[in-house]
């Protein structure tokens, strides 16, 4: 594509001399005119709005936005807010477990599927269909499955374990773990697809050579195949972390952030304060904190991507 671009530049130069009609000018400007609106939209509705939210987070805005600078007031109030720290702690617990479980299941399923399996396509589409569902649907379904009275608890009791209890959904200590269960169910198939694509890209001859040398399959996986999936681990991690930080729908549908605010995440905190509790300034401050967290995860990826592209 580089060559085509430079060919264009070459073609444009002579046109700039005598016979440059209005039509040519328009034609030359067309690409910019076409891309312009998108650029403008991005500058206003992404970058401008980030600055706007940032500004709101330095004001005393409550029910209506106000624009007088009020310093770090909202951040002080945010960091003194117990509910915020519950949300942050929950994000750490949920994010850590969610990423780990999705990666473990995803890798396991990908390796199993990569063994020349009959009906591979069929199985793959079963593992992956939850990705087509809304988190609200997933949350509603799991809310029923984990229902303390009639759901999983009742099932196990009827199997003969009459003393069995499973009340995570209504237990403030455990509610965040139900979000992990449902979230991992929804997203692990996706990680499987990423790993499977990675496995298919591995050079067979390396594996053959290792087999000839007498290495066992588990050993080949552990010391050759899995390490060569490093880039997949990296991007899967980024994507899952991104999903975790943005998680909102699932919590709303599954626990509503409750009992109390025991399963709040930053995204539900932001919604609660910014939109239902009329604390716009505090909501803005929490949104800014969320964006900083995403940036802390994504910027290293972008950096290494760019460096790799430049090298390649």
């Amino acid at each position, binding site marked *: *594509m580089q060559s085509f*671009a430079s060919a264009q530049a070459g073609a444009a130069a002579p046109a700039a001399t005598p016979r440059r009609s209005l039509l040519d000018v328009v034609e030359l400007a067309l690409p910019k005119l076409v891309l312009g609106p998108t650029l403008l939209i991005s500058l206003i509705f992404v970058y*401008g709005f980030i600055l706007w939210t940032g500004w709101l987070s330095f004001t005393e805005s409550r029910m209506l936005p106000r624009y007088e600078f009020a310093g770090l007031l909202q951040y002080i109030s945010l960091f003194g807010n117990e509910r915020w720290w519950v949300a942050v702690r929950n994000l750490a617990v949920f994010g850590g477990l969610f990423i780990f479980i999705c990666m473990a299941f995803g890798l396991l*399923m990908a390796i199993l599927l990569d063994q020349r399996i009959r009906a591979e396509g069929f199985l793959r589409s079963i593992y992956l269909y939850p990705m087509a*569902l809304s988190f*609200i649907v997933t*949350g509603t379904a799991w809310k*029923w499955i984990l229902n303390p009275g*009639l759901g999983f608890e009742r099932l196990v009791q009827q199997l003969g374990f009459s003393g069995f209890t499973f009340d995570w959904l209504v237990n403030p200590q455990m509610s965040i773990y139900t979000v992990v269960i449902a979230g991992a169910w929804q997203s692990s198939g996706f990680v499987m697809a990423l790993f499977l694509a990675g496995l298919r890209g591995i050079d067979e001859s390396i594996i053959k050579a290792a087999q000839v040398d007498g290495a066992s399959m588990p050993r080949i996986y552990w010391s050759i195949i899995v390490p060569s999936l490093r880039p997949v681990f990296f991007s899967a991690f980024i994507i899952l972390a991104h999903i975790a930080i943005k998680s*909102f729908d699932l919590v709303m549908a599954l626990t509503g952030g409750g009992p109390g605010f025991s399963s709040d995440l930053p995204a539900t905190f932001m919604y609660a304060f910014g939109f239902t509790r009329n604390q716009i300034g505090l909501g803005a401050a929490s949104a800014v904190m969320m964006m900083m967290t995403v940036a802390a995860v994504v910027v290293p990826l972008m950096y290494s991507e760019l460096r790799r592209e430049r090298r390649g």
Partner: protein
Amino acid sequence: MADREQARVAGSHVVGRLVIYALLVLLALYYLMPLFVMLSTSVKTLDDIRGGNLIALPAQVTFEAWAKAWSSACTGVACGGLRGNFWNSVTFVVPAVLISTFIGAFNGYVLTMWRFRGSDAIFTLLMIGCFIPFQVVLLPMAQTLGVLGIANSTPGLIFVHVVYGLAFTTLFFRNFYVSVPDELAKAARIDGAGFFRIFWRIILPLSPPIIVVCIIWQFTQIWNDFLFGVVFSSGERQPITVALNNLANTSTGVKEYNVDMAAAIIAALPTLFVYVVAGKYFVRGLTAGAVKG
């Protein structure tokens, strides 16, 4: 001796295969379980639900819960079922998908075939937009929609979904067109074809696969969206995901789990249908969107 060794290896091979298949089937059952529970619960009576258990088959199959979920269940204050919300979703999802795909195609075309000084920088700028948590734009957007007079309206939701979908659609088309051989367009240019002619005559005919991927991706994303729906719409205007959430989290009266499950399936049907008929394209979009998004 060698024979016996071979037999032993073959034997362990068979056992290994069995273990692999057993694990795969178990996993498949685990992934299917919630769907099965949803389906079977949705056709049970409430008595059946209270008397039986999650995985028990319905004693008798009834579609009353489906009828109620569709046309008379209460989602918050209104009691008209999900019917209205389903059509709400259709009316903003279809235009939003088509508009964002259309613009994305042109953007991708410019970013690959008509690069100019700064176009790569613009692309990077757009891509960063894929990563922001939308919470950081919600408050200004709520103000802006109010000022524009499209708060709590179908045009408002179309607008929001187009604006924040553009980065992804652009990414799809740009990454697809990068692999189109540039001789095609170059030859057309020498023959005097212009910007739009090359697009319609040469680029667009090559694009059906990526158009399908992009439409499916956008459709799934926008249909399943909850955040924009819950923040930028209210009452009768709400999309189906918001109505489903209201229905399932209503705490007044008798909890009708069968209606909840029927409603959940109704909300999931369009995207599930797309997944079943065009799963290949869905997965392609997922991994393509994932590489960077």
